[in-house]
């Protein structure tokens, strides 16, 4: 119960401050619920952790895609490029407001890209951290 209250307070401090759409906020809530199930230590998503995750080189994935930034560009506000030379619109919500409005699309791409970059599925905390980071950009 205590953890639940901590989580609610944590979520309340993050979610309502921003003009995120209902879909974006409910996606974040879904990941928060999953993160709590995955780890009892989970409290809130942290954009700083999301930034580190987004910009770091990871190991365990496919050699051509060591980081999110390999395809998405150096920063979330810059455009990216697929390895087959198709442009990718910036991930930052300020640049591409339609991002993260379709939960199935978000899950599809986390599914593929986490496997490409990390060689494993992302945890709900990793997804949520990246999401709050990108939603704040």
């Amino acid at each position, binding site marked *: 119960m205590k953890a639940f209250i901590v989580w609610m307070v944590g979520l309340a401090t993050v979610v309502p401050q921003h003009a995120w759409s209902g879909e974006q906020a409910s996606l974040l809530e879904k990941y928060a619920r999953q993160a709590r199930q995955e780890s009892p230590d989970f409290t809130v998503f942290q954009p700083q952790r999301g930034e580190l995750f987004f910009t770091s080189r990871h190991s365990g994935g*496919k050699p*051509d895609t060591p980081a999110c930034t390999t395809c998405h560009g150096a920063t979330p506000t810059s455009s990216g490029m697929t*390895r*087959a*030379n*198709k442009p990718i619109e910036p991930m930052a919500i300020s640049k591409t407001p339609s991002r993260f409005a379709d939960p199935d699309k978000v899950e599809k791409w986390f599914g*593929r890209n986490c*496997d*490409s970059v990390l060689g494993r599925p992302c945890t709900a905390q990793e997804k949520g951290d990246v999401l709050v980071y990108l939603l704040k950009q």
Partner: protein
Amino acid sequence: MSHRRVCFSLLLIASALLWSDTAWADRHERIPPATHAPTVKACSDCHMLYPAEMLPKASWEKIMKNLDNHFGETATLPEGERQEITRYLTRMAGDGDGRAWGRKFLRGLSEGDAPMRISETPYFQRKHGKKLSAGVFKKEGSRSPANCPACHLQAAQGWYEE
């Protein structure tokens, strides 16, 4: 004008028309891009929508069975979607309904050959021979053989000869 001469003239005109038509077609034939919605949606997020006609059925089957390592990336799809797209691609393949165009790409391939890239087909290599030997495709940047529109500016609309 004698009957023979009329016949000869007509034959000459017909040959000229046929020749110019073939030459015109070679330069101006268009491979209509796929309109099959699930294929367009799933395949064109990351790369140009390559025409199914340019590879044989066996290639598409192999490609669609290995989406967990799709040219160095994970491109997995829900099973229903994967099957639906495989059906479309194999139906329209160069040795399927797409043979009007695809037969060119299948020249030099043996029965059962399943090249994983269009750029591995003998037809592609013959058409791009000079560029391949000049190392044009090896330069860094956008001029990968997978990036048709870098040189064929209208490739996504189906025009490859320009």
